[in-house]
């Protein structure tokens, strides 16, 4: 149904795609795998009409597609659902579904028809949503469903999902999979970009692997397994993706908000989305400048929104915090010291970048994350807080990040890692905390922790919140003022009273 023929695309300094050819048939789900930088995003952007390829063409049902125009891609029946959803929060579900082609009578929007058609589309998918709700009031998972209904309203023949489950809870993922099954039965061709092997093998019929911009293989998922796909992705065997190694643990490094971490220890915090993990970290890190001076650093959850300054260079992003320490007289920049530090961090973190002046926004997610780690290693870090450090990062780069964490803890740094990827928490952490509904509900040593125990402690007790929607947004605004107590490094100062799951000054979510 959809054929990618000889697609190539070069950017300054990078061959993002070279002669990629494969095809995807209707009535099936095609996984698209590859490390970051393998060319998946470029391929999706060509599909959605955002990029023009240098060579090659896309053929949909025998007809070549016109490139470089999102409008024509939509007209031709292509819908790409990105991680960041493209909806208008102030408008209703129905208005969003039919945005761009609202049913009308002589120029006036026909509201009754609009609602009726929306209900039709939602029912087709088995989605229970009120068409008159404002999209801004919906949870992330519900918004994603609105995007899918929007694709249907435009008669999409090809629907591509870019990491659709990265912020969904386990139950929401199941609902999404049920919808994808329905789409498949409606003879749609579905492209599914994901790093999660379990998901790929749960719903995909074929798996296409890209590596360094080249097409490696397209195989039926029944004829391969996770290890095989990972091997094709990285071009080598990764037998143990976590590579945990025993380390010695030192004295207590941080005690704050009911959480204790020792130097040299990796503490994993697991919980479903909305369990209050991000809020807990942000509360510990309520006053960034002061925390950094105390040696506590945070790698935030949303790299693009809170981590990197995307228009500035790799070097500037690395030196953003520590330049204060290098500076002369407290304000004059010490350029040689900054350059040396950036060079050193880029090497130590193995950030793949053409040069230090490269705009960081043009690097892959894994390399951005490594640069942010470099930012904190330029400081005298004693406790490193990480919020979903490997989200949206490919397998190879994940392992590099784990290795950085092990090295750090060997140097006596206390590491706190929040993750909603349970195997990752169990694979990397020396000790596991589980959070539920804003409080720490269980604690396990590495030996005690099993997936069953952790999940049992994470699942909400009744009353069951139907869709936990984290609202770190409102929290961030509130945390600027910061009248909440400062985290203390234990040695120099008395312990603050443990406070578990206290909500921040901005009020805790919707």
């Amino acid at each position, binding site marked *: 149904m959809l054929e990618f023929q000889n697609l190539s695309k070069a950017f*300054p300094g990078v061959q993002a795609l070279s002669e990629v050819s494969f095809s995807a048939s209707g009535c099936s789900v095609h996984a698209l795998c590859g490390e970051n930088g393998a060319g998946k995003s470029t391929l999706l952007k060509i599909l959605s009409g955002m*990029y023009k390829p240098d060579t090659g063409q896309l053929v949909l049902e025998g007809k070549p597609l016109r490139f470089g125009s999102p409008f024509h891609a939509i007209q031709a029946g292509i819908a790409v659902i990105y991680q960041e959803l493209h909806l208008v929060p102030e408008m209703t579900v129905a208005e969003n579904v039919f945005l761009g082609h609202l049913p009308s009578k002589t120029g006036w929007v026909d509201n009754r028809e609009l609602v009726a058609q929306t209900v039709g589309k939602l029912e087709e998918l088995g989605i229970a949503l009120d068409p008159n709700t404002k999209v801004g009031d919906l949870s992330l998972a519900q918004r994603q469903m609105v995007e899918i209904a929007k694709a249907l309203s435009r008669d999409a023949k090809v629907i591509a999902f870019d990491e659709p489950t990265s912020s969904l809870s386990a139950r929401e993922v199941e609902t999404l999979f049920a919808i994808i099954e329905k789409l498949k039965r409606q003879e749609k061709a579905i492209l599914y970009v994901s790093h999660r092997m379990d998901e790929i093998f749960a719903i995909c019929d074929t798996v296409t692997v890209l590596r360094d911009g080249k097409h490696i293989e397209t195989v039926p998922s029944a004829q391969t397994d996770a290890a095989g796909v990972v091997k094709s992705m990285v071009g080598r065997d990764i037998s143990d993706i976590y590579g945990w190694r025993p380390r010695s643990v030192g004295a207590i490094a941080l005690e704050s908000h009911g959480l204790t971490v020792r130097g040299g220890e990796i503490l994993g915090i697991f919980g479903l989305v909305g369990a209050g993990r991000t809020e807990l970290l942000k509360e510990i*890190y309520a006053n*960034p*400048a002061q*925390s*950094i*001076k105390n040696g506590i650093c*945070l790698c*935030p959850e949303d790299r693009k*929104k*809170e*981590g*990197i*300054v*995307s*228009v*500035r260079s790799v070097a*500037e992003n690395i030196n*953003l*915090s520590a*330049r*204060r320490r290098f*500076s002369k007289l*407290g*304000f*004059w*920049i010490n*350029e040689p010291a900054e350059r040396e530090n950036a060079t050193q961090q880029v090497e130590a973190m193995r950030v793949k970048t053409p040069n230090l002046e490269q705009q960081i926004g043009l690097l892959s997610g894994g390399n951005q994350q490594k640069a942010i780690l470099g*930012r904190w290693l330029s400081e005298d870090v004693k406790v490193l807080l990480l919020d979903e450090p490997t989200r949206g990062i490919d397998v190879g780069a994940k392992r590099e990040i784990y290795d950085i964490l092990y090295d750090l803890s060997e140097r006596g740094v206390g590491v706190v890692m929040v993750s909603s990827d349970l195997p990752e928490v169990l694979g990397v952490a020396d000790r596991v905390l589980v959070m539920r509904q804003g409080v720490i509900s269980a604690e396990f040593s590495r030996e005690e922790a099993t997936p069953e125990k952790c999940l049992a402690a994470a699942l909400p007790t009744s009353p069951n919140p139907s869709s936990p929607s984290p609202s770190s947004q409102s929290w*961030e*605004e509130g945390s*600027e003022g910061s009248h909440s107590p400062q985290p203390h490094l234990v040695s120099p100062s008395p312990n603050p009273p443990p406070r578990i799951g206290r909500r921040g000054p901005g009020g805790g979510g919707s």
Partner: protein
Amino acid sequence: MKKLWQNNGMLLVCALLFLVLSFTVPNFATVENAKGLTMSVTTVGIVACTMLFCLAAGDFDLSVGSVVALAGVVAALVINKTGNIALAIAIPVALGFGVGAINGFVIARLGINALITTLATMQIVRGFARLLADGSSIGISNEAFGKLGQYKLLEFQSPVWVMVLCFVVFGLLLNKTIYGRNTLAIGGNSEAARLSGVNVVRTKILIFAVQGAVAALAGVLLASRVSSGQPNTSEGLELQVISGCVLGGVSLTGGVGTISGMIVGVFIMGAVQNAMNLLNIPTFWQLVASGAILLAAVLLDKLKNRKNV
């Protein structure tokens, strides 16, 4: 070649423009005219230095034209009352600093957007300027004060030197100090900057306060040159200044901007204005032309960057 174009596109356009104007516009390429041209961009050039910081931080300041007027009026009142030149400079500059600090406080601390905040202060400050001057200009009889803006050194008058000094000082501030780098980081991503320990609120307040002070300084120089404090002067200055910056490749969304680009932008605007004066083009058409040039420049920039994608 491509790289040269990417990095110095506007500089090339500027050079080409001067070349073409030299050959096509009579009296453009004369020493007298070069001096006049430089003199004519001083107010815009001085204020653009600090506007660059506002833009780099992702904001802008519409109140600068009003601050220039208020500073001129206050300087005239002070000099007529006291005869003390130091006071006639210090009081308006401090006042400008205060207005800017209020802008910054409302924007950064209270979270009101820059458009609304500075639109409001623009009107408030203009109102005060007219109230203080009772609607008409205040003549300055003190000769020493009048010389302030007309003092000549190496052929150029003092406002030109003040502008050059501003270019140097703010160029160094932007590139060589933590204040400047933090400004760009805030404009690029204020949340990332905050989480990296940058005091976003304090930096922004400082940016606006300095903007106010520098606009006031430009106002004092202007008042000295014309020997009067004029409450109606410099209307629309803010747009000229922002246009100059944008012409010079400063991003309106923040995080990107250089002093050299801004200088080029300011001089392109000045050269076009100057050439149109020499050709006796009516002012109304000049307005149309400057708008069209701004639009063309921004489109050119967009086109240049699109190839990067």
